[in-house]
């Protein structure tokens, strides 16, 4: 009795192991090479990292589920390049934990939205999209300008991102909260901010209200930086294939 029982049990475990082996190989083969890919795709030594304010904005973008309707990936198709700009390169999302390539365009692609519209346009559009674009079906986000951005623990976020490979320095982590405030309410250590994150950093009150740093500030700061962290895509084309 015990003997047969043992044999039977072994069989179900053998089945389980077989399933695991058969199933995992496909994924291993496809994913493993991608982790050594850094050397074979474009690289951009001048790639900027997100400032704390932009990162906070990105987290709001995630929180509100914007990715459900907006992609951030311009495919290598002519009509997409003409509509949205140069096609997206792998290097441009190398610091995106997680990536926000999206899977659906209920609204347009946002990979290169940065700089296309003014801050005022974005603020008005987020408050009530139909005021700016009457046919829009986007939800209203009018509360964003009233909710104060929580900047106190942004250092933790930078530290976690450093743990997964984004090159934030100790100094950046230490000054994260102050930097977030400084970027949106142009007072404080602006020189230091530019030094840490590069001169191209956009420093201004994004929602037009410089008294407080709101979630609107952060989200607009993020939208205005999309597609502008790296110039790699605008370089003379180096065919990928």
């Amino acid at each position, binding site marked *: 009795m015990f003997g047969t029982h043992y044999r039977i049990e072994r069989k179900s475990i053998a089945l389980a192991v077989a399933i695991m082996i*058969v199933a995992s*190989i496909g994924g291993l*083969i*496809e994913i*493993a*090479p991608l982790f*050594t*890919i*850094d*050397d*074979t795709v474009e690289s951009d030594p001048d790639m900027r990292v997100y400032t704390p304010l932009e990162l906070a904005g990105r987290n709001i973008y995630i929180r509100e589920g914007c990715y459900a309707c907006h992609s951030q990936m311009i495919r290598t198709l002519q009509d997409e390049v003409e509509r949205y700009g140069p096609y997206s390169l792998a290097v441009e999302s190398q610091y995106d934990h997680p990536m926000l390539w999206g899977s659906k365009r209920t609204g347009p692609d946002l990979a290169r939205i940065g700089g296309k519209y003014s801050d005022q346009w974005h603020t008005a559009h987020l408050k009530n999209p139909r005021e700016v674009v009457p046919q829009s079906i986007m939800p209203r986000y009018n509360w964003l300008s009233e909710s104060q951005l929580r900047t106190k623990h942004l250092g933790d976020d930078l530290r976690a991102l450093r743990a997964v490979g984004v090159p934030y320095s100790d100094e950046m982590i230490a000054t994260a909260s102050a930097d977030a405030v400084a970027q949106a309410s142009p007072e404080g250590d602006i020189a230091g901010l530019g030094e840490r994150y590069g001169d191209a950093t956009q420093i201004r009150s994004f929602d037009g209200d410089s008294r407080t740093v709101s979630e609107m500030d952060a989200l607009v700061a993020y939208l205005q930086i999309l597609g502008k962290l790296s110039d790699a895509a605008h370089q003379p084309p180096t065919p990928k294939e």
Partner: protein
Amino acid sequence: MNIDHHMLVGFAKSFGLFYLLAMAAAALLYACWPANKKRFDKAARDIIEDEDKPWR
């Protein structure tokens, strides 16, 4: 590192085919092995004729 990547990609590109063939052969052999037929038929029938309680 570069060689590493090429090696991995090369492996990924070539190995898949052989693996696929071996897998298909193994699954087909198992399923069509004559000795297994009786067992399969019994298994298929057994669920229909079900006495509604555990065997022990």
